[in-house]
């Protein structure tokens, strides 16, 4: 009688031993058939015998195919075995690679489009570029590269150049460019969202003296966002029986698509912007405003009491907080005198002290008011009543699961990025570093590495993204630090505190601009005081965080660090 052990029960069907045996046998069979067929073919050739097509097929072609098949199976088994291990080791590399890939794609695209624009501009009769139209021909592209000062009409070009010309030709069409850039933005939003999900969990863990996700991926659970996404995509697709089906299915996309469209007018730098619209700011604000509709409809269509409460709270809260948020945005718009995001960003190139938040005390206060209102507009704690998981079991997304739930979260993190990006654009110097851009003017027009250095040191999309991520961190930090407040307190804070405050600030800024001369002693003093206050806030934050990190063992006792798998 055989005794079964736990090992027998949990032994996987596809054990490593079995796999090795399969690989050996398939490889042996494949090699034998191949060598046999080859020998037979050589013998036939030597003896000068020709075979009929039937025998040729049966004797030579079929065995060859079989041999290749066997070797392919070996390859497939090996690849399958390796892939799992590879994915586990390489998740970090994959993540960083995709982020770098997106940045490189955007950079390459901007260089490529610039090149094509120069070719178009070099034509003797410049043509208007339309979405479908464009009359640049490949010959002209070849001529652009082949032309020399001695012979401007030269057509002698290597064939490789012709190939390059065919590759460059399609990029004269705006539609194609927009398509590529839209894909880049979609990729950026996806990576940001999956990164922010992991980041949020790590920060939450650290704030609560634990580790957070540690398993997936190599280092510190880097791939947790990707793993969560994969898990959500393959979950069952559930629509509650009494829900309003079509509306229920549509709602997540009504949340996500407007936020994604807002990236249309959000500039990452003076050149990295899809459309620098004259009404860009209003458009971004409007698109952020209409994702409320998706949330409300989601709560309504779920046919669930808690979802309904969540939807009602969203309707009340987000519509109210739009007003202080929009009015706080009006202050920098008044100071800049334009609604065009690119122009507002360009104003703040003169270094740390010219950032709009430090230009007057009213703007400094407005930056704070805007940040609080933006927390509420993104439904983030302490204003996360619509989804309050301890009262409403998730609020408007109680009934959602799987892919649609993931779409809600992508929308939320994308909205957080847009809101923080607006704060950076309007108050915190947009894409400029704290150093005055005028210091780097000699670099700005230099060779490619000099321009790269300029982008890294003085003004470039990296600064915009870094500053936005810093504000994103504050959003996460506040969520895990502050308790949720009651709904009546939320409404009180909006209608009776923040609304009058923004109105007073608006009035104050108006009188400031009318009465205080911009070069006078008062304006200078206010600028210095505000700059020092801002610097003090940042320094206090960095100093406290550093002190806390250095004294972490004393502060929280034996930290979870000691329980790391490797220590």
């Amino acid at each position, binding site marked *: 009688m055989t005794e079964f052990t736990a090992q027998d029960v949990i032994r996987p069907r596809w054990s490593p031993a079995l796999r090795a045996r399969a690989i050996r046998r398939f490889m042996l069979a494949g090699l034998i058939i191949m060598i046999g067929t080859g020998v037979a073919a050589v013998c036939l050739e030597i003896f000068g015998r020709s075979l009929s097509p039937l025998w040729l097929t049966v004797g030579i072609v079929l065995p060859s195919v079989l041999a290749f098949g066997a070797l392919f199976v070996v390859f497939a088994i090996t690849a399958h075995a390796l892939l799992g291990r590879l994915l586990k080791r390489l998740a970090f590399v994959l993540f960083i690679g995709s982020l770098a890939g997106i940045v490189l794609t955007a950079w390459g695209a901007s260089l490529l489009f610039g090149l094509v624009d120069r070719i178009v501009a070099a034509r003797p009769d410049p043509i208007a570029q*339309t979405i479908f139209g464009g009359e640049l021909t490949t010959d002209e592209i070849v001529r652009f590269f082949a032309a020399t000062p001695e012979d401007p009409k030269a057509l002698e070009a290597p064939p490789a150049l012709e190939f390059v010309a065919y590759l460059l030709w399609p990029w004269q069409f705006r539609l194609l460019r927009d398509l590529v850039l839209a894909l880049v933005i979609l990729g950026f939003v996806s990576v940001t969202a999956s990164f922010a999900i992991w980041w949020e969990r790590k920060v939450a863990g650290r704030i609560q003296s634990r580790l957070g996700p540690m398993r997936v991926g190599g280092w510190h659970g880097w791939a947790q966002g990707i793993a969560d996404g994969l898990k959500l995509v393959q979950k069952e697709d559930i629509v509650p029986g009494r829900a309003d089906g079509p509306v229920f299915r549509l709602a997540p996309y009504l949340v996500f698509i407007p936020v994604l469209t807002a990236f249309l007018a959000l500039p990452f730098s003076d050149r990295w912007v899809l459309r620098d619209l004259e009404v860009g700011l*209003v*458009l971004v604000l409007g698109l952020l405003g209409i994702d409320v509709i998706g949330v409300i409809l989601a709560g*309504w269509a779920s046919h669930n009491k808690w979802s309904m409460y969540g939807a009602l709270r969203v309707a009340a809260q987000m*519509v109210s907080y739009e007003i202080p948020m929009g009015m706080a945005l009006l202050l920098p718009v008044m100071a800049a005198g334009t609604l065009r995001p690119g122009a507002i960003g360009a104003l703040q190139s003169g270094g740390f002290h010219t950032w709009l938040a430090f230009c007057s005390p009213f703007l400094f206060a407005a930056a704070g008011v805007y940040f609080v209102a933006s927390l509420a507009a993104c439904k983030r704690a302490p204003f996360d009543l619509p989804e309050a998981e301890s009262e409403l079991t998730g609020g408007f997304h109680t009934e959602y699961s799987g892919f649609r739930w993931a779409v809600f979260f992508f929308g939320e993190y994308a909205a957080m990025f847009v809101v923080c990006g607006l704060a950076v654009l309007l108050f915190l110097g947009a894409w400029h570093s704290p150093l005055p851009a005028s210091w780097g003017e000699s670099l700005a027009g230099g060779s490619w590495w000099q321009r790269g250095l300029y982008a890294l040191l003085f003004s470039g999309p990296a600064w915009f993204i870094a500053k936005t991520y810093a504000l994103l961190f504050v959003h996460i930090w506040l969520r895990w630090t502050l308790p949720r407040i009651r709904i009546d307190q939320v409404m009180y804070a909006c209608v009776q505190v923040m609304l009058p405050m923004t109105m007073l600030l608006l009035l104050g800024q108006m009188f400031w601009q009318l009465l205080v001369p911009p070069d006078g002693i008062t304006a200078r003093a206010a600028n210095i005081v505000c700059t020092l206050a801002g610097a003090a806030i940042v320094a206090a934050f960095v100093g406290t965080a550093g002190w806390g990190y250095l004294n972490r063992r004393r502060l929280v006792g034996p930290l979870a660090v000691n329980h790391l798998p490797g220590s």
Partner: protein
Amino acid sequence: MTGSNRLSIVAAVLVWLARAGPVWARGPRGPGPADWIGIELEAVMFYLLGGLAAVCAVGCVLSSRVVRMALFLFGALGAVAGLYLLLHANFLAAIQLIVYAGGTLVVIIFGIMLSSASAAARYRARPAEKAAGAAVGLLLLAGLVTAVGRIDWSEGIAAAPSAPTVDGLGRALLTTYLVPFELSSVLLLAVMIGAAWLAGSGRK
């Protein structure tokens, strides 16, 4: 838009695909796709957005659930915002999104939620009402379209005006339209107080 025109577009697209671009892109002055298709993006976008607005408007009439009607209204508002963009009224499009879609519509949905006894509450019209309504509506539509079609709109067009800017609109509001502007702010104040009082007056 005539039938033969539509056919020629399809044929042109097919030919374009079949010849795979670069063949005619080689020639120094070969016909570009713009010449072949004769499409203007404006026309394509107008038919897309206008179609969306029309479908949503008809959906508003036909659907019996109020929330669906609000959803259709949302679609129509978005499509009309797109049409404003086509008409070079960028600021108006943004305002349409903020005030109409983000504000008014949310208030309407809020009203629906607070005023329905059950989620699936339906208010059905009687068949006679439906028939009469459809007849009147179609008659009115026919009359309007005939009236619009009778007039030759092409004559007397001024030179295409330069697209008005936000700057110009702001100036106009504070000069030419100063009185209506101030009146509307007074109205908004009255409405704010009135609506708050009305909504709270039933409470003891």
